[in-house]
C-alpha cells in the first residue's frame, strides 16, 4: 500500500531536518504543523493534562499513524486540531494549516476550515450519522456547506461519493436512512462525507475499531480510495499496530499525553528506540508467527494524567529506569534519520530487537498452588514489595492502586 510512489515520495525526499517540528525550515511543505500543543481539563480533583506538548508536521500526501493506548491523548490531540474540544478545555500551543494559525479562531472562522480543508472521520459510525436524515441529505449537506451549488448538483456529487467508497447501488441507497446500513457501510458513508469537499487533511480517529476484521479491510480500502482521490494527507489514529504497519508512512507513538517516538514506519517497527514502543510490539500476539513463545506484557498500567509526577511518565513500567528518569523527562531527540525518541537510554536499545530480553515475560509460576487450600498453609502472604511468583512483574505495577 505504502509502495505507491505518489504517497511516499514527499515523505522520503525530505532529507532536511526531519520532523524537527520546531524548525522553521521546510514549513511550507507541511500541510499541517502542530507545535507544542497542550490540552488541560480542569476538574474538581485537579488539572488533567490530557496532552502535554505534541509537535508534528504532516506533509502533503503522507499518512501519519498515531498510536497509543487508551488515555494516551491521541484523540484529544486531534479534537484540539479540529477545534472540537469543549469550552472548559484549556488549549495552548500552535496548530497551523498551510501556515495559518487555527488555535484561537472563532467558531465561525473554524467552520470554513472544518470539513473543507480538514475533515474528520470518527470512530463510531453508529453515532456520527444523524439517524433522522437520509444518507443523501447528510452527504449533500456537507457539499452545500462549502460550495455554492444547486441541490441537484449536490445530490449528484453525493451519488458519486458513495460510489467512490464502494457502496453498491448508490442511486438507491442515497434515499435510505442510516439504520438501513450496516456498520461498515455507515463508516463508508462517513468517509464519503469527509471527502466531499476534497480536503487537504483527513483525520481518521480509530476509523475501524468498532468493525469486524473483514469489514475493516473493506473500510481501509475505502479510506485508501478516498485518500488517493483527494490527494489528502491523513492522520490515522489507532491502537492497532497492525493497521498502522500497513497504512502509515510515518508513526507517532504517544504515551501519557506526549509523543515518545516518531519516525518512518519501518524504522519504528524494526528499530524502536523507546522501551514503551518495544514493549508494545512485544506484547502483541502475532498472526504470522508460529512460535509458542510467551508474550511480554508491560507491567503496570498507564499513569493517571492528574497531577503527573515529574520525570518520564513511563518510569514505573520501564525495565531501563534509573534514578534520572524520575526527575528529568527526556526530550524527543534524533536517534536515526527522521527518527526521534524520548528516552535517556535510547542508545541501549540500538540493535536490541528482542522485547523478551528486556521485559520479563512474567507469571513464571513455579509455585502456583495446585490445591489452593492446601498450599496456602505453607505460603505466607507477600508484603507489598515482595512479589509472588505468579503474575510476578504484573503484580508489582498493578499493586500501586490509587
Amino acid at each position: 500500500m505504502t509502495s505507491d510512489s505518489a504517497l511516499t515520495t514527499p515523505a522520503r525526499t525530505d532529507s532536511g531536518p526531519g520532523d524537527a517540528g520546531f524548525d522553521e525550515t521546510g514549513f511550507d511543505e507541511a500541510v499541517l504543523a502542530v507545535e507544542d500543543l497542550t490540552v488541560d481539563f480542569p476538574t474538581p480533583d485537579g488539572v488533567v493534562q490530557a496532552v502535554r506538548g505534541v509537535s508534528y508536521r504532516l506533509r502533503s500526501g503522507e499518512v501519519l499513524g498515531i498510536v497509543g493506548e487508551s488515555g494516551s491523548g491521541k484523540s484529544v490531540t486531534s479534537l484540539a486540531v479540529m477545534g472540537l474540544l469543549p469550552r472548559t478545555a484549556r488549549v495552548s500551543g500552535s496548530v497551523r494549516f498551510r501556515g495559518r494559525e487555527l488555535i484561537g479562531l472563532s467558531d465561525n472562522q473554524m467552520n470554513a476550515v472544518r470539513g473543507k480543508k480538514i475533515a474528520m472521520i470518527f470512530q463510531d459510525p453508529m453515532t456520527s450519522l444523524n439517524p433522522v436524515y437520509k444518507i443523501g441529505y447528510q452527504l449533500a449537506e456537507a457539499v452545500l456547506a462549502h460550495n455554492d451549488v444547486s441541490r441537484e448538483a449536490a445530490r449528484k456529487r453525493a451519488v458519486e461519493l458513495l460510489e467512490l467508497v464502494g457502496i453498491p447501488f448508490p442511486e438507491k441507497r442515497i434515499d435510505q436512512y442510516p439504520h438501513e446500513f450496516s456498520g461498515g457501510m455507515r463508516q463508508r458513508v462517513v468517509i464519503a462525507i469527509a471527502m466531499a469537499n476534497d480536503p487537504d487533511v483527513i483525520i481518521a480517529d480509530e476509523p475501524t475499531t468498532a468493525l469486524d476484521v473483514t469489514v475493516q479491510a473493506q473500510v481501509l480500502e475505502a479510506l485508501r480510495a478516498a485518500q488517493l482521490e483527494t490527494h489528502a494527507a491523513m492522520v490515522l489514529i489507532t491502537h492497532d499496530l497492525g493497521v498502522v504497519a500497513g497504512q502509515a508512512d510515518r508513526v507517532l507513538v504517544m504515551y501519557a499525553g506526549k509523543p515518545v517516538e516518531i519516525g518512518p514506519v519501518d524504522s519504528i517497527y524494526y528499530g524502536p528506540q523507546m522501551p514503551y514502543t518495544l514493549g508494545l510490539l512485544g506484547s502483541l500476539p502475532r498472526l504470522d508467527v508460529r512460535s509458542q513463545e510467551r508474550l511480554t506484557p508491560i507491567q503496570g498500567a498507564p499513569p493517571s494524567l492528574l497531577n503527573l509526577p515529574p520525570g518520564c511518565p513511563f518510569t514505573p513500567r520501564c525495565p531501563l529506569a534509573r534514578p534520572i528518569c524520575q526527575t528529568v523527562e527526556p526530550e524527543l531527540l534524533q536517534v536515526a534519520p527522521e527518527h526521534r525518541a524520548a528516552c535517556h537510554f535510547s542508545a541501549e536499545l540500538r540493535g536490541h530487537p528482542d522485547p523478551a530480553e528486556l521485559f520479563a515475560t512474567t507469571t513464571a509460576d513455579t509455585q502456583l498452588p495446585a490445591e489452593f487450600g492446601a498450599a496456602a498453609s505453607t505460603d505466607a502472604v507477600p508484603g507489598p514489595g515482595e512479589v509472588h511468583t505468579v503474575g510476578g512483574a504484573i503484580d508489582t505495577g498493578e499493586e500501586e492502586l490509587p
Partner: protein
Amino acid sequence: MTAAAPALVAPETGRHPILSVRDLVKEFPITSPGIIRRRVGTVHAVSGISFDLFPGETLGLVGESGCGKTTTSRAVLHLQPATSGQVFFEGRDVTKMSKNDLRRMRRNMQIVFQDPYASLNPRITVNEIIAEPLKIHGMWDDSGPKKVADLMRTVGLNPEHGNRFPHEFSGGQRQRIGIARALALRPKVLVLDEPVSALDVSIQAGVINLLEDLQDELGLAYLFVAHDLSVVRHIADRVAVMYLGKIVEVAPTTELFERPQHPYTQALISAIPIPDPRKERERERIILQGDVPSPANPPSGCRFRTRCPKFLTLSEVDSQKCVNEEPPLVNRGQGPQHVAACHYAEVLSVI
C-alpha cells in the same frame, strides 16, 4: 452437519472429550410489536454445530460479530437453553439436567465474561466476589478466606487488596478478578468469552500469559471464544471458525493458519493486519464483498456463498451445488485432522 456427529478431530486418538457438543441449535423468536406478540420470524443464531473439547486443551472459537460464537458459549453452560441438540459434559447431557445437576455441573465448568466492568458486582468487595461461588456451592468454611487470598495471588493480585471494590481496579485487574472467581471451584473447563478484547494490548498480554500458566498448572480445558485471530493463534491448540451460525472449518492451530481450506477462513486471516510493515506491504488481501446476511433469513445451501470469492469463479453448474446443497463439515483429504465445510475446499496460504 452430519447427524451422527462422530467425534470431530481428536488431537490424539483414544482420548475422551470432556465436552462434546452435538447438533446444537439456538434460535430466538422475532415477535411482532404490540400487546399480542405473535412470532413473525426466527433468528437462527446457531444452526446445528458439533465440536469436542478435550481435557487440557484450548479450542478457539472464532468468528465475526453475529456469527453465534457467544450464543454457543452460553448454550454450552445452559445459561441460555439450547433449542435443540446435545451438550455432553463428561458424558452427561447438560440440556436434560435437573436444576440440582446443573448446579453441580457448573462447579466443573465456569465462565469468564468479556466485559470486566459489567461482570463484577460493584456493590460488594473483591473478597466477597471471589467467595460467592464457594458459598453458593456450600464449600465455604473456616479455610474460606485463605482460599480467596490464594486465588488472588494465583491470578497475580495482592490479597491485601481484597477488601476493595471493583471500581478501584483497572480493566486488566478486574479481568483477573473474574478469572479468580471462575477458578474458585476448581473447574475442569473454563469458557472464556472474549476475555481480553476489552483490554489494552500491553495489559492483554499479561492476562493471556496468566491463562496459559493456569492451564499448564491446573490442567484446565478452555473454550476460548474470540474475534481476534492473533490472540487465538497464540493460545489455542485447535481452532473452529464460525460463520452465520455454522462451523465452517476446524483444524489444529498451525494447520488452520498456514493451510486454511475454507474461503471464509482465508478471507478472515488475510484481513487481519500484521504489525510488520514489510510483510504488510507485500500481502494480498482478499476483500469480501457486502455484509453478513441476516441470520433471520440465511442463504440456502452454503451460507457463505453470497460473499464467497470462490463462488464467483465457479461455472454455472458447479455453483448450483453451493446454492442447493449445504456442504458438510468433513475432512477434504487435504490435511490431517482438518475439516472444512466447503464443496470446493482448497488450501490457500494467506499469511
